[in-house]
């Protein structure tokens, strides 16, 4: 009953994300306590040093970790719940869930392990020299996490599977199903205070993903399979960032709606969700424009590079 490979790959992806979570929480605690430096315009050495978290660039490193970890957790738990719906639901629910899982599973495994490793890298950076030593746990998080982009199908293999098979299967039915689900959240967000622009931005992302996929399909139909798949890694970035962007917009919709009735502590929590969403859309989601261009135009320099030229 619970045999599908999807479940194992989700397990690997979530194991990776959890190392990201441990590093994030540790570096957050450290940033709240450790005092270093002053603001750029603060020249007086007699003022007390600031807590790390008071520096904008430190908050940048924390927000990146928060976006990678909590975005991937949302996606991983959502996909896990789809497995329950695939087993327990009626025929229509099962079909919907299975279509989505085919695409989401390689994204959870690859995006989850790549970006949680980046999160661990940022946690080490945030702790500075201490982070590099064994006196603190973040270097171990990174080493332990480093296996996850390698095993259970390397992330390179996962990207080829995603673009060459999953995105092309059933005439693109799986991709259409995912993009439709994302589109529904965009439609909802368009009516929520402060989220309309983000909804437009993600809708543009849906179109980029659809167009890039069609271009690859066209090349493959012409027999240019090797060239078409040469940028599969960038396709993973494209679809992964669109999907994680969706998870953030969805969280933002729920947070914004809950905010008016929230207690003060909860209000801070919801504001943090909304800010992380805005951060992701401002600093991460635009990366899909480059990724989509490379995929759609079949950027050929790696493909055409010769072994003798190295």
């Amino acid at each position, binding site marked *: *009953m*619970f*045999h*599908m*490979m*999807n*479940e*194992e790959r*989700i*397990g690997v992806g*979530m*194991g990776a*994300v*959890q*190392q990201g*979570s*441990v590093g994030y*929480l*540790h570096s957050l605690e450290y940033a*709240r*306590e450790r005092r270093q430096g002053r603001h750029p315009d603060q020249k007086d050495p007699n003022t007390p040093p600031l*807590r790390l978290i008071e520096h904008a660039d430190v908050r940048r490193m924390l927000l990146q970790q928060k976006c990678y970890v*909590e975005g991937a*957790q*949302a996606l*991983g*738990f*959502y996909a*896990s*719940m789809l*497995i*329950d*719906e695939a*087993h*327990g*639901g009626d025929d229509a629910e099962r079909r919907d869930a299975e279509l989505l899982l085919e695409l989401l599973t390689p994204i959870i495994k690859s995006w989850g392990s790549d970006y949680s490793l980046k999160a661990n890298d940022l946690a080490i950076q945030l702790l500075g020299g201490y982070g590099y030593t*064994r006196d603190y*746990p973040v270097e*171990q998080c990174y*080493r*332990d*996490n*480093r*296996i996850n982009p390698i*095993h259970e*199908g*390397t992330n*390179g*293999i996962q990207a080829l599977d995603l673009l060459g098979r999953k995105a092309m299967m059933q005439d693109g039915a799986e991709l259409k199903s995912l993009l439709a689900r994302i589109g529904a959240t965009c439609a909802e967000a368009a009516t929520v205070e402060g989220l309309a622009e983000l909804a437009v931005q993600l809708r543009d992302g849906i179109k980029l993903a659809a167009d890039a996929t069609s271009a690859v399909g066209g090349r493959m139909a012409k027999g240019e399979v090797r060239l078409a798949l040469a940028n599969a890694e960038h396709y993973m970035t494209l679809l992964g960032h669109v999907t994680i962007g969706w998870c953030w917009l*969805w*969280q933002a919709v*729920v*947070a914004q709606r*809950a905010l008016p009735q929230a207690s003060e*502590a909860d209000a*801070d*929590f919801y504001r943090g*969700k909304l800010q992380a969403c805005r951060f992701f859309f401002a600093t991460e989601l635009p990366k899909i424009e480059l990724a989509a261009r490379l995929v759609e135009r079949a950027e050929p320099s790696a493909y055409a590079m010769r072994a003798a030229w190295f």
Partner: protein
Amino acid sequence: MSKANASPLIDRRHLDFLLYELLDVERLTRYPRFAEHNRETFDAAIELAHQIAVEKFLSHNRKSDLNEPQMVDGKVVLIPEIADALDAYNDSGFAAALADFEAGGMQLPFVVATVCDSMFSAANPGTVAYPALARAAANLLEVYGTDEQKRLYMQPIVAGRYYGTMCLSEPQAGSSLADIRTLAEPRDDGSYRIRGAKMWISAGDHELGENIVHLVLARIAGAPAGVRASASSSCRAGASTTAARARHVTTCAWPGSTTRWGNAAASTLSSSSARSTTATVTWWDRQTRALRRCST
């Protein structure tokens, strides 16, 4: 300024937000299988997982990093905290988190079990590898095993007595599974004789349980090259065509712990950043007997 998050593993407020505000996992109780569950039972399982993860798994995370598995006189030696942690894991029922109530399981939804697993993998990714791989082996046996194989190999795993592995990679075939060389020769009695070497086998050898069930990807002798070719033939426990991995594999299950059965001819350990035992396992002709045992 400072806000208390009681957990070093996951932001608990964020977790509650995901489960009950974003996903509304309580909706799953509309399915008959989960009708006896509710938010309280979900939270109780998660809280128990979190507690054991912190007390028994996180507590030796650094120690097991500094003390990797060693091969001493032909046996794998692990720090004792790993066995203690897995005892707590098994005693509290997490090896059977998804199993039916009637079979002694928690009958949890997969999403709640995933959250529980996340606590253990956050606390100690090396130690959690042993039960995670065992469960993966049990899942495959549940789908593709004969009743006899389920009784012999799957049930003891679910009970926490046996562990398990997936033996796919070989020294010359990592990502390139189409190029595996391990050969399964059919025998008159329906069993297979296996010859070959597997590498990077996580949890490949240890003394944690009574036995280790290795699921081995092998090429049927005489089959044409490629992964699909090996899928078209099958062992008794073999793969058919549905699951993503099983589509590409032919599996045989048999008892293969070095010490209890004398089947795996050689094991060497590689140091692994994930810190679970990573073994190279070689099979010679003398596995014949074990294989016969497998398929009867």
